[in-house]
């Protein structure tokens, strides 16, 4: 098989390759066209360059791809509108979420106050250890006892004293020590 000759006039080789692969600057395109008019070997070389890039190119779009392309403007517009709708609804969704969160916080915040006023404390409030649990605690190591002392009031008075400070702080409500 004879090897194709890509080069006759060396100064034109780069332009021939560029022209076969895509657009040229206007001045370069004009200069190359003038040269090709009088240079048959470079015309043949131009054909070889075009063959080379046709081997690199992908196959033309199939009928299926062409059909998808015809639909592209309409489906892209639809996708854009859906996206816009989502963005428009986003602030309302965020506001609704914040309101719901605020409502939950409000309920949790006010429930301990109701408990101090005489109603039953929330189930999630920390419960005072039962007698059996207290015994188990007493059986523990001294460091465990220290931890318990630090975390819980030592006497009823302390509970009452701290009760004022704890009032309104549902998360640390110690409940009825009775």
């Amino acid at each position, binding site marked *: 098989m004879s090897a194709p000759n890509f080069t006759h006039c060396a100064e034109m080789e780069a332009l021939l390759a560029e022209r076969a692969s895509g657009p040229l600057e206007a001045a370069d395109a004009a200069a190359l066209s003038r040269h090709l008019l009088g240079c048959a070997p470079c015309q043949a070389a131009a054909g070889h360059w075009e063959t*080379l890039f046709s081997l690199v*190119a992908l196959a033309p*779009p199939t009928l299926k791809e062409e059909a998808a392309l015809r639909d592209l*403007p309409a*489906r892209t517009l639809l996708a854009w509108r859906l996206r816009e709708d989502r963005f428009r609804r986003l602030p309302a969704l965020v506001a609704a979420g914040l309101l719901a969160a605020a409502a939950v916080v409000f309920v949790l915040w006010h429930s301990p106050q109701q408990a101090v006023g005489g109603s039953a404390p929330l189930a999630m409030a920390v419960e005072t250890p039962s007698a059996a649990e207290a015994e188990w605690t007493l059986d523990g190591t001294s460091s465990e006892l220290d931890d318990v002392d630090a975390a819980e009031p030592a006497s009823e008075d302390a509970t009452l004293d701290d009760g004022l400070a704890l009032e309104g702080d549902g998360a640390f409500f110690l409940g009825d020590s009775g």
Partner: protein
Amino acid sequence: MLARAMTEPGDAVPGGRRAQRAWTLITGGGGVSDEALLADFFAGNSRAFGELVSRHQRLVHALVRRYVSRPEDAADLAQAAFLRAFAAVRRSLGRQGGTQTGLFRAWLVRIAVNVGKNHARDIGRWRFESAEVLAEAPAAGPDAVALLERAEQRRRVRAAMACLSARQREVVTLRVDGGLAFKEVAAALRITENNAKVHFHHAVRRLKAAMEGEEG
């Protein structure tokens, strides 16, 4: 030359043929700049959106085809590229109050290339098939030798493409698939125009050697 018509205004404007003809009259059949159409669209004219997509869809589709494993995925990637480009332009309009002439096409090309590269990274594939892989069936007769010779050239050129650096391959395929000028190739890849040409000619030297019979 591999002539490719990448700008085909009025391929499919939403609203039917009559509406399309009327819109062609309004826009002068493509004489309105992209930026004017963008301003029109963001002012509420959805037909301007269709005109812009129609104008650039072949270019975007051609750019992303190289990165898909299934041809039908190319339209999805093209759509994603358009949506991102419109969103980017709107952000730019919000910040600067306007866009420069030619900026939409430049962004669109860059976004299309990035969408394609991300997709290819996800699926681990890049297409080397040439235009005639499917068209040429084994044949007998006087043309058989020529076909065999061409099949051998194609095999060597594909092998050489696979051996190019990623940047060299990108430059070549942006030229061949998208018909982009070196200035546009450079903008899409964020390199200088001179750098794009250097990559191109390094790649071309290897491809030429492969076609001449030397293994790439």
